[in-house]
């Protein structure tokens, strides 16, 4: 028996066909793939297996082959942690411990991940649930010595942004270590998805990370379509692609503006802040909502033919406005001086941490779901993977600019040749295959979004795992801050612009 079941992106498989390994075999197989095979952990989680047993599920992405390898093993109360040999498992194993009371033995930093209520037995780090620590009350990694000091930021931040806590270990201005402590945004999404789909399900996905409404809704719909074996019409695939790239455009343009604002370069901040709103308004022309709520539904896109000419005209205006606004930023020596060599990561660190999205592409790693695991319209309209070699704040800004140009071209092409067809209002939900596992990946604007669903005998979700790109990348921000000035934190943070609610669920 092979150690892994192989699935395509958006594939489903009967649970009976998925290998169940012994704990030792599972650990060895996953480590071999990650360390030697170039795979990375897209998702690693536990789910109930019968009355009181638990199943560990690992979904490995093999980027070079476009294959998702799935394997499982049954666990009782403890197992040897993967993290010491595979750092990218650290967050997943903290979650497994916190939610299910399983001890990953040998985990180097086993503290709660989200300070969420346990779903079985004891809570994180082996504490009984009655002693569950209050949010944020857990030891931080600390330095000691003369003139060492600690800076605590959050959960409430100075801007109009989501809450989270950052703890810096500093010597003078220099940050030696940053530790993030999250969970403030925990709303119980995954718990509530169990037993679905129902009337609320799509709304959980659309509000999971509101700036990624299209990304998460599309991933969920692809899960439903995989489990119900439904096909999405060509017109709807194209519209989903348009909506997804509009979401990328709005956020990338907004991010360039915000990064300009963080170094006090006001022209680009002001222009890009406005253009971001213009792009959101394009999505509103499509579906009535600036964030694309109500647009993507299982089976297709729930919209009638839009005013394509108007969309094209306004898209061209966005292109004309964006280019000079962004060029100002890149041509300004004072702005460039702040962006260059700030918060640099290496490709090696990105790979070790299993990072995704703009941050890894800025380190020269060509990792993009649209290219490696093409889905929907991206099977027919290939977008080049945009990379840059510097790995710093400039790299993350410049990759965004490259992607803005690609997305503008893509959206215009799609709008010019939108396939004919009826409005698809087929609800695939409710007829999901029983006792199946489905995996879907989508390249959201932050990076890879991975959803994994397992259905019960009645075709309802027994388990629904959501992995937002932020889940992989927060540790990347922490690494990027090492040996930086603490005053560069806002700029570094904005250059990643990760989601708090996407992490906290």
């Amino acid at each position, binding site marked *: 028996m092979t150690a892994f079941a192989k699935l395509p992106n958006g594939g489903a498989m009967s649970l009976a066909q998925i290998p169940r390994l012994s704990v030792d075999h599972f650990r060895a197989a996953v480590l071999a793939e990650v360390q030697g095979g170039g795979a990375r952990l897209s998702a690693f989680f536990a789910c109930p297996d019968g009355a009181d047993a638990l199943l560990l599920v690992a979904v490995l992405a093999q980027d070079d082959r476009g294959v998702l390898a799935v394997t499982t093993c049954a666990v009782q109360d403890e197992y040897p942690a993967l993290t010491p040999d595979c750092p990218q498992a650290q967050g997943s194993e903290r979650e497994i411990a916190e939610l299910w009371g399983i001890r990953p033995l040998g985990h180097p930093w086993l503290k709660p991940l989200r300070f969420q209520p346990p779903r079985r037995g004891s809570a994180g780090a082996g504490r009984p649930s009655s002693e569950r620590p209050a949010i944020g009350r857990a030891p931080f990694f600390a330095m000691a010595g003369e003139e060492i000091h600690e800076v605590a930021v959050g959960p409430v931040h100075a801007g109009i942004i989501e809450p989270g806590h950052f703890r810096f270990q500093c010597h003078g201005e220099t940050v030696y270590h940053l530790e993030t402590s999250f969970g403030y*945004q925990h709303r119980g999404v995954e718990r509530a998805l169990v037993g679905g789909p129902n009337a609320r399900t799509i709304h959980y996905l659309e509000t999971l990370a509101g*700036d990624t409404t299209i990304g998460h809704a599309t991933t969920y719909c692809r899960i439903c379509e995989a489990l119900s074996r439904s096909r999405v019409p060509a017109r709807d695939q194209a519209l989903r692609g348009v909506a997804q790239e509009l979401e990328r455009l709005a956020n990338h343009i907004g991010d360039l503006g915000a990064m300009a604002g963080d170094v006090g370069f006001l022209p680009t901040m002001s222009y890009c802040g406005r253009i971001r*709103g213009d792009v959101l308004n394009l999505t509103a022309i499509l579906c009535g909502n600036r964030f694309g709520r109500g647009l993507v539904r299982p089976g297709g896109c729930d919209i009638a033919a839009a005013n394509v000419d108007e969309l094209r005209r306004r898209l061209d205006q966005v292109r004309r406005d964006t280019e000079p606004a962004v060029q*100002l930023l890149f041509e300004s020596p004072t702005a460039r001086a702040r962006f260059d060599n700030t918060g640099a990561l290496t490709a090696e660190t990105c790979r070790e941490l299993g990072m995704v999205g703009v941050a890894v592409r800025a380190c020269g790693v060509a990792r993009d779901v649209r290219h490696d695991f093409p889905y929907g319209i991206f099977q027919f309209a290939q977008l080049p993977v945009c990379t840059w070699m510097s790995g710093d704040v400039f790299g993350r800004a410049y990759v965004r600019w490259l992607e803005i140009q690609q997305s503008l071209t893509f959206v215009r092409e799609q709008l010019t040749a939108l396939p004919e067809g009826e409005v698809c209002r087929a609800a695939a939900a409710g007829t999901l295959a029983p006792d199946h596992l489905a995996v879907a990946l989508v390249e959201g604007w932050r990076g890879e979004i991975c959803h994994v669903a397992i259905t019960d005998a009645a075709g309802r979700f027994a388990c629904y795992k959501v992995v937002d790109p932020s889940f992989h990348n927060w540790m990347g921000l922490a690494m990027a801050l090492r040996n930086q000035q603490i005053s560069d934190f806002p700029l570094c943070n904005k250059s990643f612009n990760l989601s708090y609610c996407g992490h906290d669920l």
Partner: protein
Amino acid sequence: MLKLIAARLQQGYRTIGYPAAAPTLPERYRGRPLLAAAADSAALARAMAKCPTGALRATPDARPALDLGACLFCDACARECPDIVRFSSEFRQAAAKREELIVTPDRADIPVALHREASRLFGRSLKLRQVSAGGCNACEADVNVLNTVVFDLGRFGIQFVASPRHADGLLITGPVPENMREAVLKSYAATPAPKIVIAVGACAISGGPYKDHPEVHNGAGGLLPVDLFVPGCPPHPLTILDGLLRFLGRL
């Protein structure tokens, strides 16, 4: 420098004419719902079953009532029964009292948002501290956009400040998770009196899709007295701006 000036000229003047001129909204924008008086009770039950948050209800005399504070404006009810519910393009939806958010067939007027005391105290200068408490970053984004040149919030004397100690009130988004309870209460305590609380979005008013989750407090009202409710998922920036202006008696 010349390039900066050229770019500035190219970008032009972009502030909207509102409130002096009527704003333009996208054709498909779903604003304040309108309800039909005579409703077939079986059809109403079908429409109610489609509502993800229980916002659409039947009154004791079997007439429809829709709670804007819980509505996600998803259109599911209107699609099921277009004879009962229809979403209009009316963006003015904010209310100073929670009960004003209940739409019935008889109540077609926009809700009253004016708060006389707030108008007297803060009518010409209002400093707000925004606290996201489980907000998904959509409400936050559409609050933030008020600071862009398009809406230019500063021209109305309204400003978001970095500390609750500098603020006249809190603007809260999100369903308020238990994990944010302490931070919300501390932010409120740190705001000097007299102070106001504004709940923006379905989550902050009622919990939204997260209503009755044990992990959340069903919005700001679960912990604090709320003075202005701005419905939507998320509310259109104009709905928020209109709410603030009518709240302060500026319109």
